[in-house]
């Protein structure tokens, strides 16, 4: 943090455009995300936040502009290729394998590279066992951290909404990504789990990831983010602390409208 100006940003979004029919959803959007930060991305309904993270994660192709992760261009790549470059996203509705146990779900999330290594080591059973033991130890440690040890052998389909969300964090952490995009992690989750989710988000950052957090709950954003980017009508209209943003005329207008 002290050296922030000298360090290259984790993510650079430069003049990105995307429209649907005649609607310009993302409209020349530019911003930078500091390495190892937790950065909030907020804005009123229809601001273009979801489109923006769909563009960053490769779910939608960009029409124009650049998206650069740690020096590597992401635009034009598929979601798969982008996740292999170290950028993982979550969705508003948590996705799990309902019939696999919680532990198996986390193990299944281990990056493809590792799994191939496991596969190759079929030639040596001891090597395979070692590999598996390493992955399993990592998975179990993550589940301890996320308070899911009590349900470790239960099929994931039987978890509560909040537990599914925590499981998703374990699956993301298993990949050890450079960057995580969290799309409304509080959506549909009992408010009492908010603190636990916050701890999980800080855990991802402590492991070295940079986190972008899209969330409507601005209190949660204020408590957990280092900096906040505000979008409206497809562009960035402000960036800073929530305290600064509350006195930013453009931001206030975007939220309250014009009479």
């Amino acid at each position, binding site marked *: 943090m002290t050296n922030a100006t000298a360090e290259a940003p984790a993510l650079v979004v430069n003049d990105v455009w995307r429209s649907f029919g005649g609607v310009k959803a993302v409209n020349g959007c530019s911003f930078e995300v500091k390495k190892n930060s937790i950065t909030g991305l907020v804005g*009123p*309904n*229809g601001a273009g936040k979801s489109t923006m993270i769909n563009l960053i994660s490769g779910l939608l192709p960009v029409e124009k502009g650049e998206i650069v992760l740690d020096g590597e261009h992401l635009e034009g790549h598929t979601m798969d290729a982008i996740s292999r470059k170290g950028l993982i996203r979550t969705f508003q509705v948590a996705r799990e394998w309902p019939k696999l146990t919680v532990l198996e779900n986390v193990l299944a999330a281990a990056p493809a590279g590792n799994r191939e290594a496991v596969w190759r080591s079929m030639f040596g059973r001891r090597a395979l066992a070692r590999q598996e033991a390493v992955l399993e130890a990592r998975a179990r440690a993550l589940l301890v951290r996320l308070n899911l040890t009590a349900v470790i052998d239960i099929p994931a389909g039987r978890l509560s909404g909040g537990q599914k969300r925590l499981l998703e964090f374990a699956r993301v952490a298993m990949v050890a990504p450079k960057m995580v995009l969290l799309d409304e992690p509080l959506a549909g989750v*009992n*408010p009492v789990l908010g603190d636990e989710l916050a701890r999980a988000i800080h855990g991802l950052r402590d492991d070295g990831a940079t986190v972008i957090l899209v969330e*409507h*709950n*601005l*209190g949660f954003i*204020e408590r957990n983010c280092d900096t906040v980017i505000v979008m409206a009508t497809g562009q960035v209209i402000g960036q800073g602390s*929530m*305290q600064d*943003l*509350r006195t930013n005329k453009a*931001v*206030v207008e975007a*939220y*309250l*409208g*014009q*009479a």
Partner: protein
Amino acid sequence: MTENSQSMLVAENLVVGYGGAPIVRGVSVSIGNGETGCIVGPNGAGKSTALKALAGVLRPISGKIMFDGADVTQLSTDKRVARGLGYVPQVANVFATLSVLENLQIGAHSKRHGTNERVELIWDLFPDLKPAHHRPAGTLSGGQRSMLALSRALMAEPKLLLLDEPTAGLAPQLELQVWDHILAIRDRGIGVLIVEQNTRRALSNSHSAYVMVDGEVAANGSGAELLDRPDLVEMYLGGH
């Protein structure tokens, strides 16, 4: 607030949810006869959920809803519409495969007589719809659709209309047009309770206004009073 004798709609201590923790937690609302009221507030505050309970789409967990002097808490949406409490949902508010005219006729199903006269009144209020009367509703533009949804609700001769974000997704110019129509409806003596994203516009057009935050009413008063409240920004952007 308006006195009880003059109130068209009074909801007391509504608690509404979808099975888990309640989304709306003890909300009270009162709209006078022929008044314009609004419920505003940040995303996820529970505005639309509260409106759905008022319309009878959701049954409240607890609380009481009085409309036009009668307790309607246990009545279905249909029965509330028949008593004059109209509701225009945010989506799926027109029959896409039916023509504009057929949509209007269906809107009048609770009334035995006078459908044609009321259609004429609609052409009067919404002149843009008349030339499109034979077109399937699904082929209308967003603005026209929003107008048709309003007209359809008017066909049942409501005393009060509940509108869930009628300007959502519309270009700013169309948003203004829809507001013009809402004000025209009010000028005919029909009350309106609107859930709206554009807080300042809603407040500047409302007699009674409610700001909902996190399932509760954080502030209420006349629209003009609330527009002047210095803490209005904090209700949306946090702080304190």
